[in-house]
Structure formats: C-alpha cells, structure tokens
C-alpha cells in the first residue's frame, strides 16, 4: 500500500493540487489557482524523474508505472503547464477563470491515467475523466459557437466512449481478466479480439482524432477558446496514443489488426492534410493538420510489439508534437484566428515569426527540428514492422504537409501595412520561447536522453 502510494506520487500530488485549486477558485482567487497549478505540475514533474526507469505496476497490475507512463508524465506535465499559461493569457479576468485551470489539471490527471492504464477500468476512467473535463472546457465561453462545439464534442465523445466500454466487455469475456497484460489469452479468439479492438479504436481513436472519428476536432477547436483548443489538441491526443501503446502492446498481432490500423493511419494523414489545404481559418487549419499528425503517430502504434523502437517513436514524436503544436497555437493567439491575420507577422514581430517558422517546419518534418526526429523514428518503426508502404505514404504526405504549412509561412513574410502590434504579454512569450526552444533543441538532444 505504502509502496503503491509512493509510486503514485505524481498523480496524487496532482489530484491534491486540483482539489486545492478548486478551493482557491471558491474564493475567486484565480491567480492563486494558477500558482497552485503550476507549482504542482513542476513538483509532479520532479517526482517523476526518479521513476523513469521503473518497470512495475501498482494496485495489482491495474496501473502501470513503466517507461511509457514515466515519459508520458514528462511530456504531459510540462505541456499542461504551458497550456495553463496560454489559458491565462487568453482568459485572465474572465468569470470562472480559476475553474478552467482546475479543469485543465483534472483533465491532465485523466491523461496520466490513460498513459498508465494497465487495466480496462483505468482506461475507462481515463477516457471519461479526460472526456468530461474537455467537454466542459470547450463549452466554457457559453456562447453560441462554444456550446455548439461542446455539444458536438460531447456527442461524439459519449457515443464512442460508450461503444468502447461495450467492446471492452468482450475482451473481459475472452481473456477472463480486465488486465491488459492478460490480453495474450485472446490468441485464437479472433472474433472477440476484433470486437474489442474495434471498440478501442473507436474510443481512443476519437480522442486521438483519427479518421473516421475526427469530425469533432475542427469544430471543437474552433468553438473553444484557442488555449483550450491547443491544450486538447496536444495533451488528450498524446495521452490517447500512450493508451494505445499500453493496450495494444500485449495484444496478439493476429487477425490483421496492424494492417487495419495502418490503413487508418494512411487515411488519417492524407485526409487531414487535404482538408487543411483548403482552410482559411487558422484554428481549423491547425486542427486538420493535427488530425494528420495523428496519422503519423499511429504509425508507431502499428509497429507495436514487433519493432523495439515503436514505443520510443511514439514518445518522441508525441513530445515533439506537444511542443510544436502548442507553440503554433500560441502564435495564433498572438496573431489572430484567420489566415489573413498572419500577413506580415514575420516582419512586425520578427521573433514570433521565427518561432512560428520553426514550429511549422518542425510539423512538416524538416531536420534538425524535433518533429523530424520523431518522424524518422516513426518511419523506422513502420519499416521495421514491415510497413514500408505506410512509410512511403507518410513521406509522400510530407509534401502535402509542406503545402499546408507553407500556406502559413508565405504570408508571414509578405509585407503588410505597418502598425505597432500590441504587446503579447509575458505568459505567451514564455510559452512560445519554451516550445520553440524545445522544438529546436530537443531534436538533437532527444537521442541522448533515451535509454
């Protein structure tokens, strides 16, 4: 018991902090809420560091403390801290400001549970915790667009979530256990395996915005506050992929599910970029592009169990994705929601312009940026797993990606009418500096930290 609690340190700390944040919010002390949140995230990250090499689990195997969970925390917690800062920049002084921060921390708690899930129950709790919090976050402004976004997000989320819960019962029936580590028992029970897998793909694929479960993403991001969209597009999505990694790595690779996932992956990246090509709303553009990025992440999932670098690939690309997508959203917060708002920003705000270029090139996959390193890992994993064609499609899609992202870069350096831009404020500048630094530096350094 004591050991379990010690290993759960980061989660417990975060949960406690969320409660404290709620208390502070009752006193309408939004700055205090923010301070508690940031402190807890930092402490929680620090607590994670000694546990990175752990390979164990708590509560009878239901919650894993392993490399995936450890690195996931290292990715998700700082990412959340940055998202909090972005939220601060956007909604400072608004009504129920502190509630947003508390919800964000709670959703992150759910994300941690997803990435440590070793059991169906933890998976369900994780999905629901991230889901419910996210619905509320999206609908936070309570205006027409936000409630519409929240409603669509909710409908998709609850339907796919319930389908997942239903499908998981078959795995329980087939394997006789709710533990994922027992999924090997499903060998030979093809129908049961497929039934559960479809459900998991629906439930987690929705979180990860995979085609065909992606419809909510552009609407939800567009209707929500930009900072919330940024948060949802990275944290819950990355967590969904960590959950994929936890669930599928023990699943027998039979009945051709890797092929099915590979097809979804190819469809997702192609569709995402194609749809992004025609957007003029920046948030929607990034939303579709992040759909496409999910397709890339799925390449790592496809290779699970065969390629030893599949898990590192998912982790690295997820980290890169968190950094660059958050950064891109932060610049959008500075610039505005329309593609036309980017006009000349490279000239009027040179530093943000450079940062945006870095993010977009990284999203495209240009070396030596972080996104490139992640993609190389993903390609290697896919090729090693025998999915050369998928890697080729991924590489071909990089060209579409280039089109998508250059559509944003090109206007940035067009000369626009001069006008002194508003100051961006410290929180946003911090976020952009941190994410740009990570995107630039970690690509080279990532390799050194990895086991």
């Amino acid at each position, binding site marked *: 018991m004591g050991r379990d609690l010690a290993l759960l340190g980061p989660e417990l700390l975060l949960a406690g902090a969320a409660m404290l944040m709620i208390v502070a919010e009752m006193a309408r002390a939004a700055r205090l809420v923010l301070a508690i949140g940031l402190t807890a995230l930092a402490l929680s990250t620090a607590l994670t560091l000694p546990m990175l090499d752990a390979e164990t689990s708590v509560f009878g195997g239901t919650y894993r403390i392993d490399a995936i969970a450890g690195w996931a925390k290292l990715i998700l917690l700082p990412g959340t801290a940055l998202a909090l800062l972005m939220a601060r920049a956007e909604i400072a002084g608004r009504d129920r400001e502190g509630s947003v921060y508390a919800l964000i921390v709670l959703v992150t708690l759910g994300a941690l549970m997803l990435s440590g899930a070793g*059991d*169906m*129950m933890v998976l*369900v*709790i994780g999905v*629901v915790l991230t889901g*419910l919090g996210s*619905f*509320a976050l999206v*609908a936070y402004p*309570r*205006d*027409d*667009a*936000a*409630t*519409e*976004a*929240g*409603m*669509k997000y*909710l*409908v998709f989320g*609850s*339907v796919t*979530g*319930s*389908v997942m*819960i*239903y499908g*998981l*019962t*078959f795995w*329980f*029936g087939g394997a*006789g*256990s*709710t*533990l994922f580590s027992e999924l090997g028992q499903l060998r030979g029970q093809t129908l049961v395996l497929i039934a559960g897998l479809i459900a998991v793909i629906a439930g987690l694929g929705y979180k990860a915005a995979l085609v065909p479960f992606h419809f909510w993403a*552009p*609407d939800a991001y*567009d*209707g929500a506050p930009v900072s919330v969209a940024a948060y949802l597009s990275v944290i819950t999505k990355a967590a969904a992929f960590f959950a994929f990694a936890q669930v599928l790595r023990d699943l027998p690779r039979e009945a051709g599910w890797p092929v099915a996932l590979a097809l979804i992956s190819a469809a997702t990246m192609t569709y995402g970029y194609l749809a992004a090509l025609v*957007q*003029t*709303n920046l948030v*929607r553009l990034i939303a579709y592009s992040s759909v496409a990025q999910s397709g890339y992440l799925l390449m790592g999932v496809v290779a699970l169990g065969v390629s030893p670098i599949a898990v590192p690939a998912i982790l690295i690309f997820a980290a890169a994705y968190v950094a660059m997508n958050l950064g891109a959203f932060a610049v959008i917060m500075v610039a505005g929601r329309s593609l036309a708002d980017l006009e000349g920003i490279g000239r009027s705000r040179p530093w943000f312009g450079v940062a945006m270029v870095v993010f977009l090139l990284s999203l495209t996959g240009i070396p030596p940026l972080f996104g490139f390193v992640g993609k190389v890992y993903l390609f290697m994993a896919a090729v090693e797993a025998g999915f050369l064609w998928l890697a080729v499609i991924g590489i071909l899609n990089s060209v579409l990606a280039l089109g998508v992202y250059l559509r944003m870069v090109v206007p940035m350096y067009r000369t626009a009418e001069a006008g002194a831009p508003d100051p961006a404020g410290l929180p946003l500048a911090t976020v952009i500096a941190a994410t740009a630094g990570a995107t630039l530096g970690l690509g080279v350094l990532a390799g050194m930290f990895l086991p």
Partner: protein
Amino acid sequence: MIPELMIALSVGAALFGVGLYGALSQTNLVMILMGVELVLASALVNTVAFWRYLHPDVTAAKMYVLIVMAVMALEMAVGFGIAVARFRARGSVEMEEARELKG
C-alpha cells in the same frame, strides 16, 4: 457455449444496437444521450453475463460494473450541463441547428 450466456449476450447486443441506432439517428441532444445510456446498459449486461457464466471468480467484473454505472451518471450530468448551456445560448438542443462551425 452456455445458452444463458448467449441469451444474455443477445440481450446486450440488442440493447447496444437500439442504443447506437438511437444515438446516431436522433437529432436532439437529450435523445442522443438516451441512446448512449442504452449502449452503456448493454455493456453492463455483457459484463454481468460474462462474470456470471464464464468467470465467476473475477471480482474485477463487479468493479467494472460499478465504474460503468458511475460513467453513465457522470456523462449524463455533464451532458445535461452542456445541454442547459446550449439551451441558454441558442434556445434549442437540436444537432441539426448546430451549423455555426463548419469548413
């Protein structure tokens, strides 16, 4: 195969089908949530059936049932919360009328 199990699973599947059809075909948010409840109920039926007939000594199944029940309630609570917010913003919870965001 145990016939009772098959019956229970069929009931579950029927509930699932009805629920999913409802959730996908209805346009009113509240009705969609009803469909979702049915789907979750089918999960309960399935779990209990598997527990009772295949793995009677696995207590995790009971816990799963409890968790799913909690999920049902919480999903409804948040769902209705959003429905209320939507109603106040727009005066309707029809999905068909949600066309502000597109592209």
